[in-house]
C-alpha cells in the first residue's frame, strides 16, 4: 500500500520535474534575448551576469527606431502577412472542399500530385520563379510574396482536407436534396463547420509569413520593401554587429508574434487535434 503510494506519487511528480527543467531550457534563449536587449553593448557577451544587466538601459529600444524605420518595416510585414492570410482563407478551403467532399474524376490524381509536391525542395523552383517574376517586372514589389498564397499551399490544403473529411456526408446530402448547389453548400455548411481547421492554417500562415526570411531576401530588393525579419540585418555593419540593438529589435519583433500566438493558441491546438495534421 505504502510502496504503491510512493510509486504513484513518483510517477506523478517525476514528469513534472523533468518537464519543468526542459521548459526552463527552452525558455532560456528567449530570456537571453530579452535580457540582452536591456544591456549596453559592452556587456552582451558577459555571461557572468547571468540574465541580469549592469545599469539596465532602454537606449537599445530607442536605437531600433533610429537604425531602422520600424513603422515602415512593420507595415510591410503586416501587409504581406495579411494578404497571405487573406489568400489562404479565401482559396484553401475551396480546394480542400473539392478534394474532401466532391466525388469527381480527377480528385485522386490531384490529391496525389499535391502530396508529391510537398516533396519539391524550394531550391528547385527558386531560380526559375525568380526569373519568372523578373520577366513580369515584379521583383522589388510585394507581389511575388503574396500572389502564390491565392493559389493554395499544398501543406495547408492537406491539413484542411483531412479536417473536412470529418464533416458527416449526411449533412451535405440533406442540403443537396433541398436543392442547394455546391457553392451554397460550401458557404453555408462547409465553411462554418471548418472554422477550427481554417483557424489552424490561418495561424500557421501568419507565423510562417511574419518571420519569413528567404522570401523577402530574394524579392524585397530595396530597403523600402524590407520586412522586420530582414530589418534585423540593419544591425550588422560593414565591420561590426550592433548586438544590443539587434536583440532589442528582435524583442520588439517577438511582441506581435506573441500576441497573436497567445490569442489564438487555443484554436491552434484545437485545430491541430481535430484536423488532419496528425495524419
Amino acid at each position: 500500500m505504502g510502496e504503491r503510494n510512493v510509486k504513484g506519487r513518483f510517477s506523478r511528480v517525476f514528469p513534472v520535474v523533468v518537464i519543468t527543467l526542459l521548459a526552463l531550457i527552452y525558455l532560456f534563449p528567449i530570456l537571453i534575448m530579452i535580457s540582452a536587449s536591456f544591456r549596453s553593448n559592452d556587456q552582451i557577451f558577459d555571461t557572468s551576469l547571468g540574465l541580469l544587466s549592469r545599469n539596465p538601459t532602454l537606449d537599445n529600444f530607442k536605437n531600433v527606431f533610429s537604425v531602422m524605420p520600424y513603422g515602415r518595416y512593420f507595415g510591410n510585414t503586416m501587409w504581406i502577412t495579411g494578404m497571405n492570410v487573406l489568400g489562404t482563407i479565401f482559396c484553401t478551403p475551396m480546394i480542400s472542399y473539392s478534394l474532401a467532399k466532391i466525388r469527381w474524376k480527377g480528385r485522386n490524381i490531384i490529391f496525389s500530385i499535391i502530396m508529391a509536391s510537398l516533396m519539391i525542395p524550394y531550391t528547385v523552383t527558386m531560380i526559375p520563379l525568380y526569373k519568372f517574376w523578373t520577366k513580369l517586372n515584379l521583383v522589388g514589389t510585394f507581389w511575388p510574396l503574396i500572389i502564390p498564397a491565392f493559389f493554395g499551399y499544398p501543406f495547408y490544403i492537406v491539413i484542411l482536407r483531412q479536417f473536412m473529411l470529418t464533416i458527416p456526408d449526411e449533412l451535405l446530402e440533406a442540403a443537396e436534396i433541398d436543392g442547394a448547389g455546391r457553392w451554397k453548400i460550401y458557404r453555408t455548411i462547409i465553411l462554418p463547420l471548418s472554422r477550427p481547421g481554417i483557424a489552424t492554417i490561418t495561424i500557421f500562415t501568419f507565423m510562417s509569413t511574419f518571420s519569413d526570411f528567404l522570401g523577402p531576401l530574394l524579392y524585397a530588393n530595396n530597403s523600402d520593401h524590407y520586412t522586420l525579419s530582414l530589418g534585423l540585418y540593419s544591425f550588422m555593419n560593414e565591420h561590426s554587429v550592433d548586438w544590443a540593438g539587434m536583440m532589442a529589435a528582435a524583442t520588439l519583433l517577438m511582441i506581435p508574434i506573441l500576441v497573436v500566438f497567445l490569442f489564438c493558441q487555443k484554436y491552434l491546438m484545437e485545430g491541430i487535434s481535430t484536423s488532419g495534421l496528425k495524419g
Partner: protein
Amino acid sequence: MRKLKRNDGKRTWSPREKQANRDGLLFALPWILGFLIFSLYPIIMSAYYSFTNFSAIKDPVWVGLKNYRMLMKDRLFWKSLNNTLVYVAISVPATIILSLLLAALLKAVKRGKAFYRSVFFLPSIFPVVASTMIWLLVLDPISGYLNRFLSLFGTPAINWLGDPTWTKPALVIMTCWGVGTTVVILLASMGDVPPELYESASMDGAGAWTKFWHITIPGIAHVLVYQIVLAIINGFQYFTQVYILCSAQSGNLSAGVGAGKKNSLLMYPLYLFQNAFARLKMGTASAMAWILFIIVFVLTLVLIRISDKYVDVK
C-alpha cells in the same frame, strides 16, 4: 459524339456526376493553376537551366551535361552534400526522439499543460534571424552560456561553431530547440490512442515503458512516419540558419562565399544559393537543385515503402 465516346469503352457519366466533375474541377482550379505556374513550370525550367550556362542577366546557352560533370569534380559540391547528409542523419532521429519524449511528458502532466505546450511551441515560431544570433551568444566557445553550463560538470570547453567536428551537433542543438510543431502534433495524435488499450495493459501489469513502446508508438505510427518524412525534407532544405551564422561569423556581409572553418557549415542549399546569387552560376545551381530533388524523392519513396511494410496505415 456522345455515342462514340460510349463506344470507346469510357464510362458514362450521369448528369449528377457530370455536375460533380465540373464543380470539383472548378473548386480545385486555383490550386491546379497555381501548380502549373508555381511548381510545374519552374521544375521544367530548372531542368532546362541545368543544361545551360546561365546568369540572371545573360540569356541561357545550352551546354549539355557540363554543369553536372563539373559538379561531380567539384570538391565543395561533395563537401556540401556530405555536410547536409550528416546533418540530416543526426537531426532527424534527434528531433523525432526528443519530440516523442516531450509529447509523452506533456501527456503525463496534468496541471499547466497549456503553459508547457506554449513554452515548447514558442521557439518554432521565433524569427530565424533573431534565434540564430541568440544561438551565437549561447554557443560561444569562451563566454557562451552552454559551455559555462557544461563546465559545472567539468566538461572542457567545446568550440561549437569553430571546430568542424562540432558544427553539426551545434546545428542539431539549434534545430532541437525548434521542434515545437512536431511535439504538438504528436501530442494531439497520442490523444487519439484509445484509453482502453492502456487500461487493459495496466491490468496486465505493464509498465510505463512497455505501454509507450507497445501501445503509444504503434498507435501514432502513421503520424510519426509523416513527421519523419517532413523532418527529412526540411533537413535537406536547411539554409537560413547557416546563411546568417556565416554572415555574422565572418563579421563581414560581403563575404559572399565560404562557410565556417573548413567549409563545415556549407550546407547543400547554402552552396546552391551561393552558386546562384554570389557566383551567378544559375545553371550549376539548377543542376544542384535537381540532384537534391532526386535524392529527396528517392529517400522519401524508400521510407514510405518501408513504413508500408511495418505500419498499418489506419
